[in-house]
Structures are given as structure tokens and as C-alpha cells.
């Protein structure tokens, strides 16, 4: 007989009862997106790792208050992102996005011509620079929603704002980006 993998609700229930393996499975499932979210918000890897680590510790302690049947991912992202924002705030700095396009061509991707690769890279750098120029709230919304591909609900949870605020920030940010990129060309 082959054991079927546990679904998230079962894992959460087990973790609530103190099953550490269940909790570790959940952490491993979400640590990637949690760390990347923390990195975008905190602005450096050390703070992001601490924020994610502390966030998961707090989440584990708060599992008893987690509403059964709710998706775990936005709840975890809210806690980790809050830790990351606190670090950025306490450091008193406005971090740049601290991102750059990967230098390597991804495995499996079609290999572009050198000219096409150069144009694509320039295009990416210009777009990233334009995002960088946005006000912090707008920039974070763009980063969470598009770079991390979080849903509007998850973006709201990560930024600690309402869904409507996320939507309005995204709309304004996209309009600003269109304007900036047109001016560039």
C-alpha cells in the first residue's frame, strides 16, 4: 500500500497537535516564496533570512489561532512580510530592490542570438530601473504581484494593506511605468 501525500489542511491539523514533521513539510513548501518575499521587502539576504526564520517561528507558535480551512500561504506571508518590513523600518533605510536580472540563460530556454539577448537585457534593465523609481508602496506592490506572482490577496497580506489598496497602487504604478517607459523610447 502506498501512502498518499497529506494535504495542507491535514498537515496544518497535525502541526497544531505538535507534529514537527508536518510543520517542517509546511515550512519547506513555503520557505521559498516566503524568503523571496522577505528579500524584496527587507532588501538584503541576511535580513530576509532572519525575517523568514523568525516569521516561521512566530507562525508555529500562533498555529492555534490559525483559522481552520483558510489557505495557509497568505497567512504565513503576512507574518514573514511583517517581520521583513519591521527590519527595513528599524534600519531606517529605503532599500533599493536589490535585484538584477540573472546573468545566465536558464536551462531549457531557447538560446537567443547575441543581438537579441543584448536588446532583451537592455529592455529588462530599463524596466527594472523604472520600477525602482516608483514610490516604495507602489514598487512593493509591483514586486509582489508580478515579480513574485502573488495573488492580489497575498500581495495585500504581504504588504499589510487592503485588497483595494493593492489594486489602486498597481493601477497607479502601471500608469507611471507606461509613462516613464514611453519617455525613455
Amino acid at each position, binding site marked *: 500500500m502506498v501512502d498518499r501525500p497529506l494535504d495542507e489542511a491535514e498537515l496544518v491539523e497535525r502541526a497544531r497537535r505538535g507534529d514537527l514533521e508536518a510543520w517542517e513539510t509546511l515550512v519547506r513548501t513555503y520557505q521559498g516564496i516566503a524568503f*523571496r518575499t522577505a528579500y524584496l521587502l527587507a532588501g538584503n539576504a541576511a535580513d530576509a533570512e532572519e525575517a523568514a526564520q523568525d516569521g516561521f*517561528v512566530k507562525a508555529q507558535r500562533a498555529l492555534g489561532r490559525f483559522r481552520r480551512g483558510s489557505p495557509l500561504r497568505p497567512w504565513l506571508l503576512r507574518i514573514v512580510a511583517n517581520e521583513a518590513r519591521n527590519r527595513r523600518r528599524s534600519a531606517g533605510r529605503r532599500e533599493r530592490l536589490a535585484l538584477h536580472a540573472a546573468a545566465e540563460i536558464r536551462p531549457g530556454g531557447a538560446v537567443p542570438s547575441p543581438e537579441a539577448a543584448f536588446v532583451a537585457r537592455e529592455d529588462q534593465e530599463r524596466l527594472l530601473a523604472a520600477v525602482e523609481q516608483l514610490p516604495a508602496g507602489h514598487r512593493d506592490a509591483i*514586486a509582489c504581484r508580478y515579480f513574485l506572482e502573488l495573488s492580489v490577496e497575498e500581495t495585500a497580506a504581504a504588504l499589510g494593506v487592503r485588497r483595494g489598496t493593492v489594486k489602486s497602487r498597481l493601477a497607479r504604478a502601471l500608469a507611471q511605468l507606461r509613462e516613464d517607459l514611453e519617455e525613455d523610447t
Partner: protein
Amino acid sequence: MSSLEQRLQALGRELAFPPEPDLAVGSRSAARPFPWRWVALAAAVVALATAFAVPSARTSILRFFHIQGATVERVETLPPAQERSSAGGLGRRVSVREAERFLGFRLLLPPLAAEPPAYLLDGVLATVILRVDGHPVLLSEYAARDLGLLKKSVGDKTLVEPVRLAGEPGLWVQGPPHTLTYFSASGEFRQRTVKIQGNVLLWTHGPVTVRIEGRISKAQALRLARRIS
């Protein structure tokens, strides 16, 4: 989705993020008290057995001192370690209250005119920087249940003396640079080795292990410790 949104999404897939840390192993430390006594005992037994069983190892670990949550071992050769400034590598800056919330116990502090900031390392070890006769001194505290094992390695020119503070055991470590390594309660998710230039007083206060580190004399360290205990 507009073409701009598609471009942003495509850009996101091309961005370089730092490697993702494995956070799962660290989550165990928050969940249950770790049997540190057994770890320390096992470490001591293994090391002692090794020291006496293998001729080449006999010279590597010369003597053990142990108090709750901390082991000092005398070795012939110190492990490679990073230099650490007083404020460097202490963790993130938080308020004393926030540190206490994380640690689950009240920090032991001497009477102070103003509350100093605390530094929290991996959510298990808090440090505040005090001044003793004008010199910076680190006061670090952790619960042995949270930090698996703190190991100090000293060379043959370093003095290690047992002391007692308010009836509880402690150790005074004085002399040339020695190293400090700590392991998380899971025994695997953190291991850092730093070189300590000052003298160190280690002692226990109930479940809490306290350490003072700085360029201070034994008398100064004991005086400060008595104000804290």
C-alpha cells in the same frame, strides 16, 4: 493581462534571488525543549572517549569545563574563526522588550539610566552592550533549552577558573584570544565560530545562561555579575 504586466511577470522570472535557506530544520527549536543535558553529556562522552582512544586526538582536546548550556574546552589548536567587533555579528537590533518576547524570559540587566538596545541572534540569544569604566562590555543571555550548545575553545595560555555567583556555577575565561561556537537546539541549523579578544564570565541564573565579554578584569566582571544577578 496587459503587455506591460506580462513583461513585468517575465522579468520576475529572470531575476536573480539569493539561494533559498533551509528554514525547516530551525523550526524544531521553537517547538520543543531540546534535551541539552544529553547533548552536552553525549558531546563530552564522545570527545573524551575520542581523546583517550585515539593517540592523535589526545592532544587536540585537553580538558573540559561545563556549565548549563555551555562547554569550554582546552585545545592545542584553535579552530579557524572570524574576527568579531563588539557590535558586529550580534544579530538584529531590537528593543529589550522585543528580545524578551522572543526569548520567553526577562533579560537580566543591571540598573541603568536608560534602556539600551538589544541585539537578537537567530531568535535565541540576546545581547546588550554595557559600559564598564568606559569600555564596552557585551552582556549576552540565552535559555539553554533554546540554544543547543555553546562551545568555547581556549588555548593553553588561556586561564579557565570555576566561580560561583549567588550559589550558581560559573566560569571565568581570561587570556589570549579564544573562539566561540554555538549550535542551535536542532544541532544543525546554525554553527558560527568567532574569535573573542576579551575576557569572559559565564554563569547560570536558573534556566538562563549569562555571559559577559569584554576587556575587563575578573573583579570588574564579578562586580557587574552581582549587580545583574
